[in-house]
C-alpha cells in the first residue's frame, strides 16, 4: 500500500505531496422492481401514440440539440430512460425544461420520432404532479402564461414578467428594470392588460374541451 504522501498522480503541492487522481464514481443501481414499467406507454400515449419504442439510440437528437450540453440527460438518454421506466429521474431532470421546442431533433430523427412532443408530454406530467424545484421559473412561466390566456385570451408581456418574478425571485425585477424602462420608452411594452372582446366564448370553448377529458 502506498502512503498518502507518495501518491503518483496529480500536480505536487509545496510540500511535494501529490493528491490522488480519484474520481468519485457514484453509480446508483436500480432494480427492475423500482422502475415503472408502464411509464413508457403512458408517455407514448400522451404524445399521441408516439413511437418511442422505435428509437435505435443513434444519438442524432443529442448531437443536433443546441442545449444538450446543459442537460443532465441528453435527449437520447431521456428516450431510453422513459422506455425503461425511470419515471422519477426523467420527471425531475433539467432536460425537459431546457428544451426550447426548436424541433431540430424532430426534423432530424431517422425514425421520425417526434421528440419535441415527447418533451411536451413530460412537461405536462411534471407540471400536473408539481415535480419541479421551488422558484424554478420555466414551469412557473408556463403556468402564469396559461392562467393569463385562459382569463383574457391574450398575454401581456409586461404583466407576465412581473408575475414570474413575483413567484420566483422578486429581486429579478430589479435586474430587468432597465430593460423594462427601455421597452416602455420605445413603445414596445405597455402596462395595460391585453384581452379579447368575447372572453365568454373562449371560456365556453375551453370548458367544452375539459368536459371531454
Amino acid at each position: 500500500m502506498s502512503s498518502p504522501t507518495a501518491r503518483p498522480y496529480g500536480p505536487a503541492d509545496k510540500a511535494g505531496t501529490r493528491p490522488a487522481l480519484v474520481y468519485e464514481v457514484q453509480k446508483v443501481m436500480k432494480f427492475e422492481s423500482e422502475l415503472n414499467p408502464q411509464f413508457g406507454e403512458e408517455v407514448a400515449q400522451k404524445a399521441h401514440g408516439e413511437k418511442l419504442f422505435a428509437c435505435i439510440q443513434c444519438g442524432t437528437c443529442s448531437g443536433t440539440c443546441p442545449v444538450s450540453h446543459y442537460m443532465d440527460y441528453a435527449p437520447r438518454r431521456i428516450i431510453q430512460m422513459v422506455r425503461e421506466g425511470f419515471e422519477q429521474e426523467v420527471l425531475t431532470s433539467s432536460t425537459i425544461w431546457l428544451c426550447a421546442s426548436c424541433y431540430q431533433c424532430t426534423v432530424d430523427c431517422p425514425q421520425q420520432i417526434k421528440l419535441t412532443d415527447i418533451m411536451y408530454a413530460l412537461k405536462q406530467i411534471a407540471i400536473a404532479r408539481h415535480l419541479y424545484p421551488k422558484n424554478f421559473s420555466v414551469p412557473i412561466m408556463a403556468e402564469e402564461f396559461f392562467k393569463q390566456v385562459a382569463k383574457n385570451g391574450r398575454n401581456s408581456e409586461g404583466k407576465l414578467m412581473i408575475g414570474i418574478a413575483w413567484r420566483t425571485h422578486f429581486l429579478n425585477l430589479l435586474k430587468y428594470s432597465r430593460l423594462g424602462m427601455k421597452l416602455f420608452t420605445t413603445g414596445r411594452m405597455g402596462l395595460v392588460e391585453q384581452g379579447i372582446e368575447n372572453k365568454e366564448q373562449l371560456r365556453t370553448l375551453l370548458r367544452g374541451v375539459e368536459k371531454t377529458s
Partner: protein
Amino acid sequence: MKYLYYPGCSLKSTGKPYEESLKAVFSALKVPLEELRDWNCCGATAYMAVDEVKSFALSARNLALAESQGEPAPNGMVQLIAPCSACYAGTLKTQRYLAENADIRRRVERGLSDASLTYSGRVQVRHPLDVLINDVGVERIKEAVKSPLGARVACYYGCQIVRPYAAFDNQQVPASLDTLVAAIGGTPLDWPMKTRCCGGSLVGTIREVGLRLNYLILREASRRGADLVATTCPLCQFGLECFQPGMNASFQASVRMPVAFFTQLVGLSFAIPERELGLQRLFVPYKKASIGG
C-alpha cells in the same frame, strides 16, 4: 385578393416595429391586409407545456374566426398571415393534429360547438415571407425598390418558421429570406446559424443558457462581417437585440449588432420613412449607410 392578418400578442408589444413595417410594406405593394377580428393568443410553447388539447383549441378558435371573416382565394382557402413564428408554427401544428388525430379533433370540436364556432379546414396559414416570395414575387418587389439596401445581411430564420410543419422552404438550408434580401439590394451572407435556435423564452427563464444561445448567433454574424442581422420572428429579435448588454457582461464581449425585422429592410429599400417602419424603436439603431447601395 385579401389577406387576413393574425398579429399575435408579440406584434402588439415587443414586436411592434414588426407590425408597423409589415403593414407599411404590404400597403406599398398594394396587397390588402385586414386584421382578424377578436383573435386570441396561439398558446405558444408555454400553453402546450400545460395542456396540449386546450392549446389546440385556442388556435382552432382563430381558425374558425378566420373561416367566417375571410373570403376564399382562388384555391378555395382563406389566406391567414401569421408573422410571429410561434403563432405560425402553433396554428400549423393545430391544423396538422386536427386532420390526423381523431381523438384531438373530437375534443376540440366539442369545445368549438359549445362556443358556437365551426371550422371545416378551409384556412391556409401563411408566413409573410412566404407571401412576399411566392405570391407577390421577386419581380414585383424588385420593381418597387427605390433605394437598394447595400448592406451585408446575416439572414436569420430561427427555428419555428421552417420546422417542422412549414412547407414553403427547405428545413435544413432555407433560402427564401436570402432571395428577398438579394432582391432589395442587400448581400446575404453565407453562414451556418440560419436556423439555429435562439432559445426563445429561455433568456427570461434560464438566463445563462438563453444568453449564450443568442450570443453564439451574433458572434458568428460579426465574424462573417455582417452589418446587421435580419430576423423573421419577434421573440428572436427581442432576445438577439435587447439582451446584448447582458451578453457582453456575461461573455466579456463587445457585441453591438443591429437586429432588424426583414420587413423593416424591405421598407427601407422602398424608401418608406423610417418612423413608419418603427426603426426608432430598435435598441441598436440601424441607419442605412449609403443611399443607392
